[in-house]
């Protein structure tokens, strides 16, 4: 290590190499993923998020919902995500091409939300959950405001107490729209073909692929 400049250059090369290999390569590669046009549906998938849902994603970010929820379904032989009906198939990179800041998450304190839009019945259901919480999920009551009963708010009330009703704020509505938009069941052609493992090959129980 007597040679200073070479030492610095080697350090830089090691980092740059990993940057080119991981960051730049995946950037170039995943940029090639365009929406998949399905002739049968005469539509391209995934579909872009509506504007209100995109704003809802910012609420999701700032409240850090990702600290308890993932948004990535694992394949059938890796955990029971699909048995839990979190999705019909594994999440693929193409599902996220319209998202600026993916919310993959690291810990599942609560269920995976990648396709939660398919499970939620209405915005009201989301409001009930966020306003009251459950025994395991915290309430987000600060996303709601009090207004006099009968006031024209144009919003669905989630609760009432004498003379007052609890209505979702704009942020709550955006968040609900975001959650309801989360759903990508579509089986894109290339992914469907490239990840199909012949039933005989797919290990029934989860073992590490043989080395």
């Amino acid at each position: 290590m007597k040679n200073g400049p070479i030492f610095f250059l080697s350090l830089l090369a090691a980092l740059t190499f990993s940057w080119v290999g991981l960051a730049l390569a995946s950037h170039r590669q995943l940029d090639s993923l365009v929406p998949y046009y399905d002739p049968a549906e005469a539509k391209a998938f995934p579909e872009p998020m509506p504007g209100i849902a995109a704003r809802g994603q910012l609420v999701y970010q700032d409240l850090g919902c990702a600290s308890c929820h993932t948004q990535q379904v694992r394949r059938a032989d890796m955990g029971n995500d699909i048995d839990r009906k979190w999705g019909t198939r594994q999440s693929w990179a193409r599902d996220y091409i319209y998202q600026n800041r993916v919310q993959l998450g690291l810990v599942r304190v609560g269920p995976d939300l990648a396709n939660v839009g398919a499970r939620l019945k209405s915005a009201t259901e989301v409001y009930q959950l966020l306003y009251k919480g459950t025994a395991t999920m915290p309430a987000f009551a600060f996303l709601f405001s009090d207004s006099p009963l009968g006031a024209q708010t144009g919003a669905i009330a989630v609760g009432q107490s004498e003379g007052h009703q609890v209505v979702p704020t704009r942020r709550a509505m955006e968040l609900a729209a975001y959650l309801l938009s989360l759903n990508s069941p579509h089986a894109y052609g290339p992914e469907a073909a490239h990840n199909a493992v012949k039933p005989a090959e797919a290990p029934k129980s989860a073992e590490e692929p043989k080395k």
Partner: protein
Amino acid sequence: MSSPSQAIVSESDKTARVPLVLLLVSAFGWLIVSTVLSLIGTIQLHTPTFLASCVAFTHGRVDAMQESAFIYGWAGNAAFAVSLWLLSVLGGTPLRGLGLLTTGAAFWNLGVTAGVVSIAAGEATSIPFLQMPGYIQPLLFVAAGAITTPAVLAWTGRSSDSTYASQWYAVAAIFLFPWLFSAAQVMLLAAPVHGITHAIVANWFGQNVITLWLLPVAVAAAYYLVPKLTGRAAAHYEFAKLGFWSLIVFGAWTGGRHLIGGPAPVWVSTVAVVALYLLLFHYLVVAINLPAGLFAWNGSATLRFVAFGLTAYLVNGLADVITSTHAVSQLLHFTYFSVAQSKLLLGGAFSFLIFAAVYEMGPRISGAKWPAPGLIGTHFVVAASGTLVTVLGLAFAGWSQGHAQAETANNFAAVAAAAKPGLLIATAGEAILLGAAIIAFFHLVRLQLESFSTASSSRETPAPSAP
């Protein structure tokens, strides 16, 4: 036990005292902040109503604040201080550019404070390891530049051509961090990439903050302290260089480990798994180089910190490989087990090696002895038990959570019930860790107060000759 001997004072160099103490005191202050936040966050996991009505302390924000306070507040400040100091003492040269360094350190801490406050106000980026909002990041980057410049000067201006492993690790950390940081700021915030690429880049950055910035400083400290305190050279030192390069070269590719089974193309996680296996070589080298530190359980308190830190470091390396396998990953990925692992690495390996370094360096930069040497041993016992209880509690919680989730019939109330005992244990552990952090902080502050009174009683610290 670790009371400063004559040699420490003789090796003392107080010229860089102001900036280094500024970095250290802030670091230990941030450690208290992050431990409090960690405690709150863990309580919220088993009692979701805790502080739920307070938007600034909603779980997601507590999590993001805790991470920022820990990584940039505690670990960042401490890593800067230790690597600067190691480069100065091993380079045989006093630190230069102290004005720049002090200013940089002040702005770094202002930046982190502003960042943590803005997360509380709802500005978190939601990017792991880069939670502080985009408008704070350039300030942090410039401050980091100001802090690292004196380190580079200390390296290039070293008095001897020969260098030692600690210097390589410290230089690598100091030199690679700005590149890493700027690449991440551009690709994640300023001109962000989209979709899964964003997640891949974020993982590349987040993992390398640990692997290429924080851990090298901890390893540098270990390589320095073991020969220093045991009086014995590192064993089989001829492999040290290979060990160093294997960390830098292989470690840089481990980012994809969090994407195993996830929506990134499979090569990303496959490459990461292979890199984790290859890293085993690095751990092997550290183990054969520093057995004197690894098994120093009945040495001085400082050495016991080293022993704990090194053990945690090696255990974590193995755990990384094991949890990346298909069978284990499908069970424990996405559970508290991964939280336990990161606590073991950052709170165990990194923090303990840094504590050891601070116990060595504190007196030498302040020109005074630790006011209560016994407190070092107390700190060790409290910190070690706190870390063990927290890590084991979380690992147990994660294990139960993973098994409960694997039963499709279990709803999330049942999963939460299964994880609760472990989480309660971890909560107790966090509380103990808070005690440890407070002990360390006050000891450091008292050392500074002490050294001021020493300095005023005798203008010059007597510098007896080395034994």
